[in-house]
C-alpha cells in the first residue's frame, strides 16, 4: 500500500506546470489527490512524475458570470458559474452564489464522498477523472457545461459532450491542465433535481440520477449505469412510462455492488423521483 517512486514537481505557475507535463510523457497532475493517491498506493498507477498544481495561485476561484457577460454565446444565454481547478468540493458546496445560480451543482455535491474528502478533493479534478460512478461529470454533461484547459498550444474549451470518452478516460491530452469548469445557470422557470442510492451515505452510488426540466424538455443524466455519464431525453414521455423509457437507452451493468436487475429497478424509481421533483421546482419558480 505504498506508491512506487516518482519525481515530484510543484510549479508556481500554470505555464511552468504545462511545460513540465509537455516534457515528460509519463507525468500526471496531482490536484486534491483523493482519487489519484489511492490509485498510486494500490499501484494501479505509477507515473514517473507528479506535477502538484496546489501551489499555483488563482486556481481556486468560484465566480458567477452574468447573462450580460455571456453575450458571445460561449457561456449560454443565462450566464452560469465557473469553478477553478483548485476549488475544493467543500468550498463549491458552501458557496451561496453557486446554490443560487445553478442549484443542481450543490444538490449533487452533497452526495460526493464525505465532508473530510470534500475538504481536499476538487470539483474539476472529479470531472476530468471521468469516473462514470461520480456525480459531477453527469451534472456537467446534463447542463451542457464545459471545461477550459491549458496546454502547450494555449487554451481551449472542451464541451462536456466531447469530454467523456470511456471509463476514467477524458479527452484532455496528457500535457493539458484543466483550469476551470463552467456550469450554465438554471434558466428562469426551469427545474433540477438530484438523487442517488448508495449502500452507505457518502459511498459511490449504485445508481444516481439528475433531472433537468425546462418547459416541454425533460432530460435525465445517470451515473453508474455505463462507462460514461449518460443523458437521456425523456421529453413528451408520460409520467408512468418514464422509467421504462429511460431503460430503453441504458444498459445497467452487473457487478459486485449490484445486479443489473436491481440497477434497472433503481433507474425506474430514481427517474420518476427526480423528474417529479424537478417539475415541482419549475412550477414553484
Amino acid at each position: 500500500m505504498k506508491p512506487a517512486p516518482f519525481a515530484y514537481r510543484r510549479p508556481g505557475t500554470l505555464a511552468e506546470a504545462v511545460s513540465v507535463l509537455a516534457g515528460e510523457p509519463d507525468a500526471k497532475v496531482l490536484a486534491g489527490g483523493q482519487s489519484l493517491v489511492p490509485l498510486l498506493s494500490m499501484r494501479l498507477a505509477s507515473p514517473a512524475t507528479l506535477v502538484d498544481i496546489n501551489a499555483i495561485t488563482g486556481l481556486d476561484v468560484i465566480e458567477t458570470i452574468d447573462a450580460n457577460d455571456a453575450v458571445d454565446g460561449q457561456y449560454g444565454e443565462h450566464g452560469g458559474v465557473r469553478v477553478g481547478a483548485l476549488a475544493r468540493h467543500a468550498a463549491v458546496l458552501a458557496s451561496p452564489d453557486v446554490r443560487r445560480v445553478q442549484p443542481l451543482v450543490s444538490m449533487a455535491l452533497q452526495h460526493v464522498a464525505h465532508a473530510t474528502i470534500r475538504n481536499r478533493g476538487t470539483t474539476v479534478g472529479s470531472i476530468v477523472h471521468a469516473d462514470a460512478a461520480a456525480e459531477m461529470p453527469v451534472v456537467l454533461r446534463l447542463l451542457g457545461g464545459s471545461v477550459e484547459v491549458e496546454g502547450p498550444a494555449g487554451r481551449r474549451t472542451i464541451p462536456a459532450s466531447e469530454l467523456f470518452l470511456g471509463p476514467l478516460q477524458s479527452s484532455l491530452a496528457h500535457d493539458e491542465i484543466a483550469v476551470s469548469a463552467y456550469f450554465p445557470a438554471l434558466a428562469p422557470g426551469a427545474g433540477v433535481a438530484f438523487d442517488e442510492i448508495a449502500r452507505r451515505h457518502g459511498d459511490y452510488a449504485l445508481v444516481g440520477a439528475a433531472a433537468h426540466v425546462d418547459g416541454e424538455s425533460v432530460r435525465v443524466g445517470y451515473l453508474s449505469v455505463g462507462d460514461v455519464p449518460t443523458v437521456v431525453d425523456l421529453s413528451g414521455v408520460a409520467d408512468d412510462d418514464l422509467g421504462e423509457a429511460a431503460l430503453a437507452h441504458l444498459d445497467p451493468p452487473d457487478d459486485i455492488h449490484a445486479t443489473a436487475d436491481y440497477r434497472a429497478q433503481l433507474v425506474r424509481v430514481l427517474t420518476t423521483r427526480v423528474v417529479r421533483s424537478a417539475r415541482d421546482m419549475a412550477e414553484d419558480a
Partner: protein
Amino acid sequence: MSEELHDVRLTVNGATHEIRVPARRLLSDALRHDLRLTGTHVGCEHGVCGACTILVDGEPMRSCLMFAVSAVDHEITTVEGLTNPDGSLGPVQQAFAECHGLQCGFCTPGFLTTITAGLRENPAPTHEEARDMISGNLCRCTGYQNIVKAVERAAELSS
C-alpha cells in the same frame, strides 16, 4: 537508482520539523515514522476508514491521501495537539473517556480530530447533526452510539 529526497518543513501542533523524505512519503507515514507522532493511526490507506484524519489549517483531511511534500504550506494538527495547554485532556478527549466512546481505540484519533473541527463549525449539533459529523469515520468496536453521545457531551463541555 537512489531515490530523490526532498527537504520538507512541516508545522505540526505548533512545532516546526525538518525532515528529508522521498516524494512518495505519505503524510501519515511522515507523521508516524519520521516525526514519531504515532497518535495518528493508519487503517485502510485509501481514504475510507478515517483513522488517519488530521487537521490541515483546521480542516479535517485524510493524511493517507496527502504527501508530506505537499503539506509544507500548512498548519497540521494531530491527535497529540488536542490536549489542553496544561496537558490535560481536551474537551472531545474528555467526552470520549466519560461516554465510553472507544474500545480498542484504533479509530479514535480520527474521530477526535474530525469532531474537534466539527464542533468548531457547529458548536451545538442536534442528534442528527452529531451522527452526520462522524459519518465519514469507521469504528469496528463501539457500534457508534457512545461516539454520538461523546459528540454531544463534548459540545456541552466546550460551551
